[in-house]
């Protein structure tokens, strides 16, 4: 086989692999597109938000049009974390008057069996940078500069649930 053919075969392999990944992803999205729970419609990849056990909304990609992108440099690793503040996400779906300073916000990942809790007062303080960073594989990761959430082990990767509860 000539070198030209080998290169062509390599490019073809690459295109097939990329096509396979995108095809499988599209298939998965189509299968789970628009799950309705009561009046709340959850699109594929969206993160459900519960208020005192009741599903009130889903954090979905269309929300990003209404959210400001923020970033900070993680002092431990010197890595820039860029995304959307948890505070802004919640305020998009829950009235500020409903949220009390002592309310507990639990952000969790079922696939990683991890969760983190912050109070509304902590999330509302922008100096804490309690925010979602978009991970390389497209899922959300909760990060912050707060002591309890400032290292890789404490971050919550692959977030798939947000719960707001009264303590």
């Amino acid at each position: 086989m000539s070198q030209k053919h080998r290169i062509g075969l390599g490019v073809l392999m690459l295109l097939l692999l990329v096509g396979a990944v995108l095809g499988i992803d599209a298939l998965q999205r189509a299968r789970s597109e628009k799950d309705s729970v009561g009046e709340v419609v959850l699109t594929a990849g969206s993160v459900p938000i519960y208020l005192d056990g009741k599903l009130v909304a889903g954090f979905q990609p269309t929300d990003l049009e209404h959210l400001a992108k923020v970033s900070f440099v993680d002092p431990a690793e010197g890595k820039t974390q860029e995304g959307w503040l948890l505070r802004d996400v919640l305020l998009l779906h829950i009235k500020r008057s409903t949220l009390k300073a002592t309310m507990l916000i639990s952000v969790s990942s079922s696939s990683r069996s991890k969760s983190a809790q912050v109070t509304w007062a902590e999330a509302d303080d922008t100096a804490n940078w309690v925010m979602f960073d978009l991970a390389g594989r497209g899922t959300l990761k909760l990060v912050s500069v707060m002591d309890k959430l400032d290292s890789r082990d404490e971050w919550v990767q692959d977030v798939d649930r947000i719960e707001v509860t009264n303590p």
Partner: protein
Amino acid sequence: MRQRYFSTFQLILLAQFAALIVVAKIALRLPLQLSGHSGLFWMAIMIVATGVVPKRGAATVVGLTSAILAAFLGLGDFGALDTFLSYLAVGVGTDLILWLLGSPEQPVIAALAGALGHFAKFLVKWALAGVVGAPMGFVALGLLKAIVSYLVFGALGGLLGALTLAALRKAGFFAYLAERK
């Protein structure tokens, strides 16, 4: 006595390249908010390694060694298994494509090997996310953007590797290596 596939000298060289990948991953912080941007130096080092030790399996040895180092140093956001397999995949992927394409000293081959080798890492991360039941990507276009980013930085890294190999050849490094074997 049966001759070993890799000489001790070659294994030391490959281990150094593996260590260089891990050190670069820790120390180099490119201010780019794009996934897979580390492929720029990662694939450059990998391609140089396969040029300096031109034997099948050289990239896998670098991948395996860097995988062990990275997993023990706690690199990566998604745990030791994810880190180990994704670092290993870069090596295996690069070896497989170079097996088909031949010498990485040609820029086109190096770029293609860089792109495919780096994409192997993406594939492993994506597959593992499916296995552990990670939620679907938040942004639908995020996956395509990540794929393009991985391929571009991998190809650029491969190209950088080919240029480095050419510079090393010009400097007489390969003649020096031939004496050391």
